[in-house]
């Protein structure tokens, strides 16, 4: 069988398929549907320093081959996370990556510092790209200097693998990714959602309480792939591809373009076992193609 293992900094994943932050809860919501240990890893919903209630409804709406969300990062806060959510996560054998966010670079570092004593966290993913949080969100992600500053601040408090998650809503994701790599990120993940909007023409109200929100799902896959390809050419650290991936074929596009791993988000809402199907589909593909390992595939784009 093909060796599907992937290195993200010092972390070794059994396979390149992760679940995307905010779309897989803290794992337990999916435990009924399949064996979570078949995954390369789980990325948790974003954890912040203080508890957050999230945005008022309506928070979601369906769009062509996609959806808008404006969830607003509801979570119980890092201390309760450790008490309520970690016990289940720590019972898993798959890698658990904790996604964190803060309103300032200091707060990012504080959340991570608060998690350092927790045994078994495989890596951190920094979410400074979520477009629907008013306090800060947008500014961290859209300026290379600020983006690098956050990565550097967090780098200073942890030796665990550090993944910086990038927003596509910028002129040059390559520049921002490069700055974060230089500031000490072990890997980059991309993309977070695209800023989008929809209107109910009957009521003339925006379909989301926050007017604009984040677009995800198959609709954004071509955008995600272009951004991942741009990053792959700009940095030498691993890039994790995210955006509209629903099948092994989709994942293969990213891996061939150079992604080290992928994350499955929206697809899991519709098919709870979507991520497992991607793992199995990759296994099948590699077997059929007679590949010894994923490195033979990664970045094999024929130009």
């Amino acid at each position: 069988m093909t060796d599907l293992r992937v290195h993200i900094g010092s972390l070794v994943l059994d396979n390149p398929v992760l679940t995307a932050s905010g779309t897989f809860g803290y794992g337990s919501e999916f435990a009924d549907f399949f064996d979570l240990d078949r995954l390369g890893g789980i990325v948790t919903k974003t954890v912040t320093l203080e508890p957050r209630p999230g945005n008022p409804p309506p928070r979601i709406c369906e769009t062509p081959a996609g959806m808008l969300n404006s969830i607003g990062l509801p979570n119980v806060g890092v201390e309760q996370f450790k008490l309520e959510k970690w016990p289940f996560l720590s019972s898993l054998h798959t890698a658990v990556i904790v996604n964190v966010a803060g309103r300032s670079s200091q707060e990012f570092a504080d959340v991570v510092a608060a998690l350092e004593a927790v045994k078994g966290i495989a890596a951190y993913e920094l979410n400074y790209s979520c477009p629907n949080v008013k306090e800060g969100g947008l500014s961290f992600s859209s300026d290379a200097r600020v983006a690098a500053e956050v990565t550097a601040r967090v780098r200073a408090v942890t030796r665990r693998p550090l993944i910086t998650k990038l927003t596509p809503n910028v002129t040059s994701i390559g520049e921002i990714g490069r700055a974060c790599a230089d500031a000490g990120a072990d890997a980059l993940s991309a993309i977070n959602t695209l800023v989008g909007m929809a209107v109910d023409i009957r009521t003339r109200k925006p379909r989301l309480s926050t007017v604009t929100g984040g677009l995800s799902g198959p609709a954004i896959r071509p955008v995600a792939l272009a951004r991942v390809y741009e990053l792959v050419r700009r940095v030498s650290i691993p890039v994790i591809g995210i955006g509209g991936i629903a099948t092994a074929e989709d994942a293969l596009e990213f891996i061939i373009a150079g992604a080290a791993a992928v994350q499955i988000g929206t697809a899991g809402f519709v098919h709870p076992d979507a991520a497992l199907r991607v793992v199995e589909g990759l296994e099948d593909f590699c077997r059929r193609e007679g590949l010894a390992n994923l490195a033979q595939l990664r970045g094999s784009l024929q130009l």
Partner: protein
Amino acid sequence: MSKSVLQLPVIERAEAARQVVRLTLQAPEWARAARAGHFINLLVPGRRDLLWRRPFSVHRADRSRGTIDLLVARMGRGSESLAECAPGDHLDAIGLLGNCFPFDPGLHEIIMVAGGIGIAPFDLLLQDVQGFSCKKSLFYGARSAGDLCRSTLWAESGAEVHLTTEDGSTGSRGLVQDELRRYLGSSANHAGRVIYGCGPTPMLAALREMALALGIKGYVTVENRMACGFGACVGCAVELAEARRDGQKYLLACKDGPVFPIEEILFHD
């Protein structure tokens, strides 16, 4: 019961009312486990352009046949296609989802209030409470006589049925909440009564007001937009009437609901 994804054969299809179809699906385990309030989330066949599944309440369960019934109202793209499903088709479903109407055997009267397709969970509720001696009152309103989904269970369960239609073609003319208001107004003692509501938001808001004013306990089901149905997307937020001490302001319709104590939540359009 643990959640799962099943391919359910469609066994029967019948027109239940104008623009409403009743589908009978083979699903033995769910037929056994389903209680009023539970729902399933269906992939819409032939509409791969729709990203999300569509949620439907379990309308009835025939435990001996191993089937469940759904009432599908034609509301838009997905429900139109589902309403066209026929015996022989299979539906990809996630279930059982959500919580159910709580029921206390010591109650004197359960008052079910249904607006339009909100009738869906009440057949199963009547099944659930069969064998309990409390009075069963059903208040059910629709636009017109042809929009009412009548049920043999009404008679079988001995329910007292109050029909209303907006055009007066059957029962009292007007809205179901007005009929209920008259009914409740005729007695001063509401002890041992509980209201169960399912229907459009203005109806639920009216029920809430009545229940709070008269001190009657009540439960309602909400029908928020759902991307997943099982707690993963956190999109189906329902606003709490009072934020919790830990700052929590919202519950999830799919996981904490769809049934909520009527005083606990606020209704949004």
